[in-house]
């Protein structure tokens, strides 16, 4: 690599740096802009007079006395009870991740160890299920949930999200288990363990890197979901994402769009922290499927 770096012409270097700078601005600037703007009043964040008002905030100073204001956050968290939605999101995510991983590790392990043809077809069917847009499935759930009075509750959403998560979880864990040598559990079975004991005592202790990575993606799927949670949860049980979308309906007319901006920043913050701590696992997870086939 160093050899190549020396050989690179100035022009090429310039182009590469330009690409990186432009991409960094595109990727990071919108978030910084929104974070900064969330501490301003609406008249500054959406300024008719001058776009730079969002940076300096003359109206914010005039209306609130300081150059930063927490009004948006106060409105979202206290007046609109965004905290409840955050709590609901937490409950949904914890349960979805735990259940998905439990089901997924068992299934993924079996799929990686079976040599029969049906294991292959099982994975192909899972791939087809993975391709189904969640909203098409939702239109299948609704009449049944209405009839059986299951509509609107958190457990319903959790079970549905677990199921929608399964195809992806199975694929990912399947490829992780494939990398754990077969000899490991087979020697345990020679020593007298049955399949489940071999799994429990030999595979479980070494599977955590793969499980953590898969768990991160299950978390993201549950956290980011809009189609399922918006249609299945009742207003009182809403999670953060549908709550934010409901802000748009009500607050834009009230002139409180800043509530939504503050809520958006609040909902993005946990994701930032997660990427910060688990960057390596996320990258390895994204590439696991592709590089290993």
């Amino acid at each position, binding site marked *: 690599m160093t050899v*190549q*770096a020396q050989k*690179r012409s100035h022009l090429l270097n310039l182009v*590469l740096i330009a690409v990186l700078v432009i*991409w960094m601005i595109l*990727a*990071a600037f*919108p*978030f910084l802009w*929104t974070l900064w703007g969330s501490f301003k009043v609406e008249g500054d964040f*959406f300024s008719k007079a001058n*776009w730079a008002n*969002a940076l300096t905030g003359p109206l914010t100073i005039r209306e609130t006395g300081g150059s930063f204001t927490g009004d948006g956050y106060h409105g979202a968290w206290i007046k609109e009870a965004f905290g409840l939605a955050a709590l609901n999101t937490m409950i949904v995510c914890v349960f979805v991740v735990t259940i998905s991983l439990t089901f997924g590790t*068992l*299934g993924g*392990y079996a799929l990686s160890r*079976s*040599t*029969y043809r049906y*294991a292959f077809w099982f994975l*192909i069917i899972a791939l*087809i*299920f*993975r391709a189904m*847009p969640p*909203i*098409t*499935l*939702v*239109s*299948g*759930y609704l*009449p049944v949930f209405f009839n059986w009075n299951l509509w609107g509750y958190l457990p319903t959403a959790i*079970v549905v999200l*677990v*199921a*929608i998560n399964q195809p992806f*979880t199975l694929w990912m864990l399947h490829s992780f288990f494939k990398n754990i040598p077969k000899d490991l559990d087979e020697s345990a079975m020679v020593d007298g363990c049955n399949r489940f004991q071999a799994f429990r005592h030999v595979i479980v202790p070494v599977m955590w890197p793969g499980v953590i990575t898969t768990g991160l993606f299950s978390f993201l799927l549950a956290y*980011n979901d*809009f*189609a399922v949670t*918006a*249609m299945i949860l009742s207003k009182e049980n809403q999670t953060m*994402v549908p709550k*934010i*979308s409901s802000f*748009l309906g009500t607050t834009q007319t009230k002139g409180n769009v800043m509530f*939504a*901006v503050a809520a958006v920043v609040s909902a993005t913050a946990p*994701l*930032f922290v*997660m*990427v910060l701590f688990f*960057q390596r696992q*996320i*990258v390895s997870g*994204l*590439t696991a499927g*592709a*590089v290993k086939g």
Partner: protein
Amino acid sequence: MKHKTFFWFVLPSSLAMLLFIFFPIVSVLIQSVHVDTEQVIKEVTNCGPFGCETITAVDQEATQALKRENPIGRFAGFTTYLDRRHLAIDEVRAAWSTSNGIGSFIKQLVNLPFYKAMSFTLAFTFIVTPLVIIFGFIIAVAVNSAAKWMRGPLIFFSLLPMLVTPLIGALILFWMVDARGIVGNALQYLAGDPTLSVKASTPLTWIMLMVYGVWHSAPFAFIVYYAGLQSVNQDTLESAMIDGASRWEQIRYVIIPHLLPLTTFIALMQLMDNFRVFEPIVSFSAEAHATSLSWAIYNDLGGETRQLSSAAATSVLTILGICILLLPVLVRTWRDFTRK
């Protein structure tokens, strides 16, 4: 692994998928050929001080009883598929006979709700997917050429657009391109038109949605390609250099063939994900200018009157679309599998 052990291991996850993915698909199929039970109308005679009059009213009790008896409604065959909100056979036929050229026919066609959604969904899928692959590749090459200590932070920021909630990411961009936002302002300045509004114009809305799509998905292609670049065989690259291959030739004959299988993987994932484009349309409130199949289903399901049959019919058509999209992949997998 024995059949029986395999069965018990995969039971929980197959049960979950059977109940909440397979059955819903069946349920959608059944619903799509049924429509709501008709309301029972009865005649009521109201006698007041000014004489009696007969009015017709909905017999709630009888309607409820009928609904209980027949929860999925009455069988309607393919009428829902053929009505104006879906395939709109009559309207298409009328448009065909009245229009005097393929251009005006298409213009009439995309005014029908289903074809409007379909045209945007397909355009989005087939424009965004190649752009994601191209931009992802360029970013991967650029990051790969950066100094080692810079790569960590570069990857951190690159991942953000992809990992952030789609609805939220789209909202953030939407606020920036608002006529009063920073990007909206910049566009007005560049175009020299202070009344320019991205929200009000159909082509600009389409472009904005696609820009969002590329912004959101390019990091995925980037990270896959980046990992691929790490695993390029250095010996092959060196021997190519010794043989006098220029930088471009190295990329063309060593790196691109190495990355080709990854491209298939990215294309497959992106086709699946872009076909379900939905959240940005909600965030951008773009439904006047662009709708997608997923959005059409969401729109039918939401609101006061939940039009379950209509949503189900659109869902079936969407699933058919997905199957057609996946067919080449499935055929190839099947060929690979039987060859082994």
